[in-house]
């Protein structure tokens, strides 16, 4: 869960990257994919005034809790959807079984990798 524990005094989350060596930055813009737009829309709808199922700070906390490995491995919106799923389970809105069953269903009809 924790990356750099070097200094006991300054616990540094692995997401707290400011000032850490990072190499060259890719400054090219890219278009959002359909699935990225959907993740964004899902986030907005879950937190809107009608539903209020999550707060932006909860989502950030859930992203930071994915683990250093997932944080490295997943893309930006992949972290978003993984954190959203964890939050919905945490809050009892969905169960792991329901999510897994739905993913299997979508895969079966060839709709997802």
């Amino acid at each position: 869960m924790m990356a750099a524990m070097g200094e006991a005094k300054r616990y540094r989350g692995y997401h707290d990257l400011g000032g850490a060596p990072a190499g060259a930055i890719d400054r090219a813009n890219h278009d959002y994919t359909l699935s990225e737009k959907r993740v964004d829309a899902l986030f907005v709808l879950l937190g809107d005034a009608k539903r209020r199922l999550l707060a932006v700070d909860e989502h950030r906390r859930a992203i930071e809790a994915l683990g250093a490995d997932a944080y490295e491995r997943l893309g930006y919106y992949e972290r978003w959807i993984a954190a959203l799923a964890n939050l919905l389970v945490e809050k009892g809105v969905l169960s792991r079984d329901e999510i897994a069953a739905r993913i299997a269903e979508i895969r079966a009809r060839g709709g997802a990798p």
Partner: protein
Amino acid sequence: MTARFRPGARVRVRDRHAQGHLRTPVYLRGKAGVVERLCGRFRNPESLAYGGSGLPERALYRVRFSQRALWPDYRGSADDTLDADLYEHWLDPDETRRR
């Protein structure tokens, strides 16, 4: 609206141990800067992140730091600055004269 610091006040970011979700990056801990403005009062993200109410609201300041004060090997102009939004409970008055 009560606020502990006024624009122009010299402040130092607290260097306290902290875990969990927070909005004060490690690279600013212990650094001194100047309050540029009071942004307003907002619910505390450190509480909201865990389903809390975030109340009472906390004053949020935009604090200006000298880039050279933040990065020992900074090669840009001595006038270059960095602004960061920081909550009042992460700031102390800066006692030292020099930034």
